[in-house]
């Protein structure tokens, strides 16, 4: 075992650092709307032009095909210098792209993959519905084959950036007569098709990143089906095999930076003198942040040789999101509400705190993560 980076990895880090220093977008990122879309796509375009796009994508699809350690190094360097997190680009780069690589037709791949890597298209994810949250496979939005099209009717919910996206990975019920996982289909939906209505949802932080999307007899060409009709659950799950446990790296670096900044701030004020428990909580949080990084690296390396990574990613997801919420609450107690102390992200401390309530729910709630850990990591009965 060794902690030090090998010369090749050190050289990689140095190259990443130098390129980022010269190219990262240092100006504040708009946190909503078309301006944010343009900012994020411009950053993706710059990475493509500089030869840094698609660190996890295979080389045959113009990605860099980096080993997982170098992916982690890249993500950490991006976060350390203050480049934007993947955020609105997440579905396209880390979800839809890999799904198409694994399951798409040659035409689908040829059309969409370059647009994703080159920063020409944003994607959103149409999975959750009002009656299908944690129990995703109970979704009801239907697709009926009619000639050369699927006719889609129903509603999706919690679709991040639906109002800014060009395409959507849409999961539909195409056969209501079979048990629920079996009658689903994964299809590429063009968000400009007639019959689609998008309503942004204002969340508790005052922003509107989530949307609800209504489909009224929307005709999607059958050529947009990825995999086969009624094979959508397998297609959706296949994406997981691309996830090597790097998803929260950027956020973890942010947490470390926030905690370090809070430590410096505490030392400058007298808050620690009359509230010594703040010191204890902050020290504990920094220990946990360090351990989370260690666990991320350990999991990523154990997973790198597996065809499908183990369920241990749920340990990181659960630990990270819960820790983020605790740290942001602590931050708010230390800096005070409405603080004029500049934060680490472009959001205010209040907004970062409020947003942390989203993270223990999105992408599988903490409670669902505990079920996965209990059943798939520990082998407890269902």
């Amino acid at each position, binding site marked *: 075992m060794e902690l030090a980076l090998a010369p090749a990895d050190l050289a990689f880090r140095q190259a990443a650092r130098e390129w980022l220093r010269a190219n990262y977008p240092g100006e504040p990122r708009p946190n909503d709307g078309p301006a944010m879309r343009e900012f994020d796509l411009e950053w993706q375009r710059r990475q493509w032009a500089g030869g840094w796009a698609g660190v996890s994508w295979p080389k045959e699809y113009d990605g860099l095909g980096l080993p997982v350690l170098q992916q982690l190094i890249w993500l950490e360097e991006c976060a350390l210098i203050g480049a934007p997190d993947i955020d609105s680009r997440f579905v396209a780069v880390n979800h839809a792209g890999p799904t198409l690589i694994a399951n798409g037709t040659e035409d689908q791949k040829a059309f969409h993959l370059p647009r994703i890597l080159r920063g020409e298209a944003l994607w959103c994810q149409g999975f959750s519905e009002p009656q299908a949250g944690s129990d995703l496979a109970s979704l009801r939005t239907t697709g009926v084959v009619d000639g050369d099209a699927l006719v889609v009717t129903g509603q999706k919910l919690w679709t991040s950036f639906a109002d800014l996206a060009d395409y959507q990975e849409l999961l539909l019920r195409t056969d209501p007569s079979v048990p629920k996982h079996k009658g689903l289909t994964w299809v590429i939906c063009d968000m400009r098709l007639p019959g689609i209505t998008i309503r942004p949802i204002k969340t508790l932080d005052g922003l509107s990143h989530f949307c609800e999307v209504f489909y009224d007899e929307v005709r999607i060409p059958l050529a947009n089906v990825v995999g086969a009709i009624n094979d959508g659950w397998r297609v959706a799950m296949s994406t997981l095999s691309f996830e090597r446990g790097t998803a929260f790296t950027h956020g973890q670096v942010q947490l470390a930076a926030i905690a370090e900044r809070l430590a410096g701030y505490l030392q400058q004020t007298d808050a620690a003198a009359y509230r010594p428990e703040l010191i204890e909580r902050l*020290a504990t949080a920094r220990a946990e942040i*360090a351990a989370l990084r260690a666990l991320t690296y350990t999991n990523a390396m154990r997973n790198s040789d597996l065809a499908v990574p183990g369920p241990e990613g749920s340990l990181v997801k*659960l630990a990270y999101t819960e820790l983020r919420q605790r740290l942001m609450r602590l931050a708010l107690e230390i800096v005070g509400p409405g603080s004029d102390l500049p934060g680490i992200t472009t959001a205010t401390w209040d907004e970062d705190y409020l947003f942390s309530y989203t993270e223990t729910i999105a992408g599988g709630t903490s409670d669902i993560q505990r079920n996965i850990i209990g059943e798939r990591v520990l082998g*407890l009965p269902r």
Partner: protein
Amino acid sequence: MDLLLSDDQRSIVAAVTELLDDLMPIEAVRRVLDGDNAPLDALWRSAGELGWFGLGLAEEHGGTGFDLIDEALLFVELGRRIVPGPFLATILAARIAALGGAADAAMALLAGQARAGLAARPDNGPAVLYDAADATYLVVFGSQEVELLPAAMASGRTDQPGLDPLTRRETANLFGEPIVSAPREEPIVARGSVLVSAMLTGIAAATRDLSVDYAKTREQFGSAIGAFQAIKHRCADMAVGAALAEAQLTFAALSVTEGTEDARFQAAAARVVAEHAALSNAREAIQIYGGIGVTWECDAHLYLKRVHALRELFGGEAAHRPALLDRHPRD
């Protein structure tokens, strides 16, 4: 960077596991608890023959030539089985003696022919001795220095039992000239603290496993209680705590060995995370066992009590906090 166990390390863990299965299963731990020291004496002889007490010491100093991470792997297994006996003090004492030129003491300690107890000496008041009953030497941690002292130099020894019936705790006054005296340098304290973290990590894992095994077999309301989310989710949280402790232990041990700029920070983080996970998981184990959990016959309380004994060592969490509030050096 390489965070996967090497073949050598797999062999070490396998050999340790095999020997402990043989000589110190929980039934043997309970024999020691009842006052029969034979299992511990037998284990001690084998440990000496196998070179455990010089595992992380260079061969030129009489050791086995592995690293702190390998010692940590050993101590995780010792923690996992709440093995009694002064393994920690003896491995540290052997190192201090060997590096400090006390050849006779080093040879006896490395071979398992002598044991060392741990002593924490405050600036004022008597020292606290841990597992020093059969010790020939004491490794003494003062506020400024680390010393190796003949155990005979402790006077006025008085039993001061803590919670753990398997950790002998005494107070005593220490006098006389040390065999080896060194400034209280980071490496030896950091090594000791990493090994405490390793034992706590082993306890966090063991109590997770105890709970999960019980939750799979104990039935109520017609099903294994592990099917209930109230139990399942506790087990999941225990798994998170144990996984964080294990991962950070590796980072801490490697940082100290490689002398990284943030080694103090990493070691402190390992200590805090392991202490929290061990205490919390031991508590949860008792809770999940229900009524059985509070009986003497259930092993869960032995883990809880060992956590409380280990928490005292090297100043506990409070002593590690300052390192966690410093600027984090970054390369």
